[in-house]
């Protein structure tokens, strides 16, 4: 009897909750500091999600916290969100370093955390129950590129060049492991310190090793310097492969005589044929005057998932976490489901994409089912 009564009450409460429900969600993002240019994409993606949730009758009250790119600031933001603002869930953070720290804290507070873009593998490999990741991992970045390369051609050797930061080193390690698995010989491997005006001596060595593939993990500015100097030295491997970041920005693509036919792995592109991807790209462009990077789509989808789940769960953190574990979604980011596999917990198996610059524009070229343009293979030589 009592059970029935509580069910009836719950149903009664749930009906108005569905009509206009108000949920309080925290956001941790790098809004200022050195990571701010990419943080801006996350902020904008979340703003668009907020509008779409409102259109669905879910009123979200967002509490914005700026981590300035520093883990310790992210930690105190999480403290504040969990104890003072009393939010039901958090979306964030941007960088791997901040997210890794914040995730630990979320677990302590039993606070559902949806991580949009941080790709360091360990984040969802520590047995956490309240940490959910939409983003792919660094291992996926290398895997999709090498899968494509071995399907399109028969590369026998690879040179791996990365910056000597967390992101660079872990990206290089994943690439090396996957190359070994695929039977591609690593003929050159080096971590450089970013920001140097001269990488020619390193690139001369790469040229000497004569690799079939050249794999690079770099941020914006270094990506351009490396490709300029590769052109100077007339480096001509079968393909140049970039692990996202510096190789998937508009600025890089606009340097036509060095960016043509360069491949880059990415999590999302505006021209991928997932439902709504193109509309999202156009809407973002119109609203903010810039082309969105994959970070914007990741953040959008993370907020949509968190908003919808939180509205259904009605302000209870345990129920939000249960809802995230049980649910599955589909949309402009492709299918999303949080699963346990390969040592991961609550990790989305995301389909990575490869984009290629062709005459200053990005085309999604891999996997074949999702392509918007044919890949140019092998590297056609410098213009």
């Amino acid at each position, binding site marked *: 009897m009592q059970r029935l009564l509580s069910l009836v009450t719950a149903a009664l409460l749930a009906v108005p909750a569905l009509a206009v429900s108000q949920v309080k969600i925290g956001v941790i993002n790098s809004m200022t500091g*050195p990571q*701010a*240019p990419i943080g801006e994409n996350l902020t904008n993606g979340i703003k668009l999600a907020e509008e779409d949730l409102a259109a669905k009758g879910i009123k979200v009250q967002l509490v914005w916290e700026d981590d300035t790119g520093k883990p310790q600031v992210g930690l105190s933001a999480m403290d504040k969100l969990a104890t003072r603002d009393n939010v039901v869930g958090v979306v964030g953070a941007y960088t791997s370093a901040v997210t890794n720290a914040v995730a630990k804290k979320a677990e302590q507070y039993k606070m559902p955390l949806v991580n949009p873009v941080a790709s360091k593998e360990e984040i969802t490999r520590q047995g956490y129950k309240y940490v959910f990741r939409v983003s792919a991992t660094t291992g996926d970045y290398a895997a999709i590129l090498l899968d494509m390369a071995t399907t399109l051609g028969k590369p026998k050797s690879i040179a791996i060049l990365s910056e*000597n930061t967390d992101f660079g080193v872990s990206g290089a390690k994943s690439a090396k492991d996957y190359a070994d698995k695929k039977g591609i010989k690593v003929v050159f491997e*080096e*971590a*450089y*310190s970013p*920001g*140097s*005006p*001269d*990488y*020619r*001596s*390193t690139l*001369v*060595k790469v040229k*000497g090793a004569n690799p079939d593939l050249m794999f690079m993990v770099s941020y*914006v*500015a270094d990506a*351009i*310097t490396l*490709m*300029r*100097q590769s*052109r*100077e*030295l*007339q480096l001509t491997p079968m393909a140049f492969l970039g692990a996202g970041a510096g190789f998937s920005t508009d*600025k890089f693509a606009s*340097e036509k*005589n*060095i960016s043509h036919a360069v491949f880059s792995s990415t999590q999302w592109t505006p021209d991928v044929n997932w439902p709504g991807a193109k509309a999202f790209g156009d809407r973002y462009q119109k609203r903010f005057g810039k082309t969105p990077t994959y970070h914007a789509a990741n953040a959008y989808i993370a907020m949509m998932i968190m908003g919808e789940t939180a509205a259904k769960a009605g302000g209870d953190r345990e129920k939000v976490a249960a809802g995230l574990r049980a649910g599955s979604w589909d949309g402009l980011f492709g299918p999303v489901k949080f699963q346990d596999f390969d040592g991961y917990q609550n990790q989305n198996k995301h389909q990575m994409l490869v984009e290629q610059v062709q005459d200053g524009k990005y085309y999604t070229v891999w996997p074949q089912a999702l392509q918007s343009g044919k890949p140019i293979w092998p590297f056609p030589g410098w213009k």
Partner: protein
Amino acid sequence: MTIFLQSLLSGVLIGGAYALIGVGLTIIFGVMRIINFAHGDLVMLGMYASFFLFTLGNVDPFVSIVFVFPLLFLFGALLQKTVINRVLNALPQNQILLTIGIGLILSNTMMLLFTSDYRIISTTYSSGSFRLGEISVSTPLLLSFVITAAVTAVLYWFLLKTDTGQAIRATAQDRDAAQLMGVNVKRMSVLATGIGAGLAAVAGSLISPTYYIFPQVGQPFTLKAFVIVVLGGMGSVMGATVGGILIGATESLAGAYISSGLKDLVVYVLFLLILLFKPAGLFGKSRV
């Protein structure tokens, strides 16, 4: 052998720009005994000046030096007259704090005005090269080296042959004696700071077509210039020229034969060794 020649060549060519930055620092130090820790930020200002001349006025970065030098010369002179001049006789730590402060103000002002976005100058020759036997020579780097050599030649002529140049050298050798001989040392200080700032900015302009520009780009150059100047001998223009090229070549060869992640380590080990065996620097005169 190809690797050696290729690395040596690009190292020497990039060392030319380092030398120019170092020469500016050493002239300022020579005349006023002040180490300008804002020097890298002056390089940054030169880069921004070239960037805006290129994007707004379509002036080639290499041509832009004819505007950038006078502009930054005036800026440096103004800085000396209004701020640096006041600490000439102050404690060394106060002088250091002042120049560091100037540097911070410059880079943060640029950040406020133009945000921290990376800016890139793309000229038609930005990634151009031509072959010389087995090795490839970067067109922009070679051009910038030629201009550096020309600027250095003019500077040497100015310091050695003109009256003003000789007065600057006299002030650098012995400020009091120069003053007693009727040299206007105050004016020389203003001139020296102007020339130093102008040279730093010219170096910035010359690097800009192959590098990228953001408000904090200058700081590593300050450190590099400091090493070059100490290595060559504080106050020695010849020393800074040789020191710059030496550092450029060492970096490049270390990148080729050890690891590009460790090239700074090699540079500083070399630096320490030289100081250990020749404390006054390569061309410095011991002041004991």
